[in-house]
């Protein structure tokens, strides 16, 4: 929108400009969140919508995910001869890493793509323009409720994935690998601690925000016509994934440095 005659043309300027605008939209969303009147109705509708498209796939993904973790860890740990700690390792892996990522992938893949397509269609039909002309800020009206909904649902889904994932890993460990239920449950809290759950939820919250903002950004700036909307959806999912794994790495590194492991 503000690309004027003064815009620089050095290599990579385009990428920098896009990054800057994405960041600007993120800031705008934060600022507009506190602008009254809050679009409560839209927020609830979006929450319900995102939840309805993500709950089932998330649960279905969480079960095999827990199982994979159990199988892999089970094999490794047996080689070390530390079968009694299998529960502890599985819980840690699932809650800290697997749950927020699965959640984020689902919120980005199912919720974000829908948000992006919806906003993209509105943009090319000039609905967004019309809204601005009618003196209503589309960021406050449309984007803020969607981003907040993505965040709330991500946090809630994260809880779901944690539970389902742990149950899945328990089932596979006990039933298929011949582990003992007692050992699994007894070591449950040997390594995991409460801050692990907090960081898990904080991660989910941030991933929800990123997924929402990226989807909204690509949706509001499709390039030319209906095909542009398709491309935008595609890009929004890819960009979100890239950002998520990067942010996940940073958050994990920070967490491991800041919060001491249990017992040390």
């Amino acid at each position: 929108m503000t690309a004027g005659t003064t815009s620089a043309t050095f290599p990579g300027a385009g990428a920098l400009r896009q990054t800057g605008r994405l960041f600007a939209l993120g800031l705008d969303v934060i600022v507009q969140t506190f602008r009254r009147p809050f679009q409560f109705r839209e927020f609830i509708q979006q929450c319900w919508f995102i939840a309805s498209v993500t709950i089932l796939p998330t649960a279905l993904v969480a079960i095999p995910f827990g199982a994979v973790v159990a199988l892999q860890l089970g094999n490794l740990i047996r080689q070390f001869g530390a079968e009694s700690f299998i529960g502890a390792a599985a819980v840690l892996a699932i809650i800290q890493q697997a749950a927020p990522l699965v959640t984020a992938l689902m919120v980005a893949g199912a919720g974000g793509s829908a948000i992006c397509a919806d906003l993209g269609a509105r943009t090319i039909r000039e609905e967004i323009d019309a809204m601005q002309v009618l003196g209503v800020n589309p960021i406050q009206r449309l984007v803020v409720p969607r981003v907040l909904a993505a965040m709330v649902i991500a946090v809630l889904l994260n809880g779901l994935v944690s539970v389902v994932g742990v149950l899945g890993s328990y089932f596979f460990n006990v039933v298929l690998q011949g582990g003992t239920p007692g050992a699994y449950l007894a070591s449950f809290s040997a390594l995991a601690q409460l801050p692990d759950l907090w960081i898990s939820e904080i991660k989910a919250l941030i991933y929800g925000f990123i997924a929402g903002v990226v989807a909204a950004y690509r949706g509001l700036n499709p390039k030319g016509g209906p095909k542009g909307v398709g491309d935008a959806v595609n890009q929004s999912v890819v960009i979100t994934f890239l950002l998520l794994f990067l942010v996940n790495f940073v958050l994990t590194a920070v967490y491991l440095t800041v919060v001491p492991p249990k017992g040390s």
Partner: protein
Amino acid sequence: MGAEVVVEGLTKSFGRQTIWRDVSLTLPPGEVSAMLGPSGTGKSVFLKSMIGLLKPDAGRCEINGVDIVTCSERKLYEIRKLFGVLFQDGALFGSMNLYDNAAFPLREHTRKSESEVRRIVLEKLDMVGLTGAEKKLPGEISGGMRKRAGLARALVLDPEIILVDEPDSGLDPVRTSYISQLLMDLNAQVDATILIVTHNINLARTVPDNIGMLFRRELVMFGPREVLLTSDEPAVKQFLNGSRIGPIGMSEEKDEATMAAEQAHIDAGHHDGGTDDVRGVVPQVEPTPGLPERQAVRRRKDRVMQILHTLPPSAREGIIDSLTPEERDRYGIQSGVHATLGNRRPSPRPRNQEWQPAEGTLDTEVANLPRSDWRGGP
């Protein structure tokens, strides 16, 4: 009375491609203006720049003294409440039915009770002939209905400036005339400033008070309707006739060779695609009988008579011919005077210069400035 829009030196480009440069014009308050131009000359871009949806590279666009190019976002949202904009496809909100669409601006910006909202919305929907379709979703109705619903939504806040993007696209000729009539009636009732972007020749000839034309990245001219309708400018002439002969080609411009080849075809008897020569000033659409008189007509006449001596002779003739005997009397014109006005080069008054009486005696002879008692009419 509607707001005045002053555009000065507006320039817009996308990347390296200049859309138009140095567009300067003034939409006189309360008058109906039209912006013509071949497809793809940036008419819609111009309209969007005027409401701050696109940011021009240079220039000013002042509405009620506020420059919307440089003003803050908050101010921009305030100013936009003065506007009613009809987009090409109506731009209705797909998730709301027509009633909610039309009620949207009222619910957002006013504290009116729901019954009052209902009264206003039904009145505007009735105005555009959509009574009974309130519960329909935009996806379920035809393009023409969407357009009319979009117009209803643009009108609910009683805007001072109405911008209309191609009111005729997707409408049959009859509905187009109805829309023209509706815009005229609106202008008579609320005295709003109206800008219509179109390439419908018929609409351009009969509706607006002022016409401008964009071509080759420039505003070719902007002035009273008589000036464009009688213009000898090749692009304007070709456009108004819908002919293939002239500077406008299938792509933006054509080269000499193509022009020569086409001329050769015409000389050999091939039809040029145009209708009859439709130049000349045709009567304007009047508001429906029973509605108040359009204030703009009188204001415009006063304005035009003041600059009459700067207009090209053919436009002058057209204007003087359209005057009633009383008006001739009022402006102090004897019939036949215009024949002696001489033949100066046709050109509308350049906007960025102060106007000077070209040859001292003419203005006193032709245009008596309006007497003050004419202004505050009914």
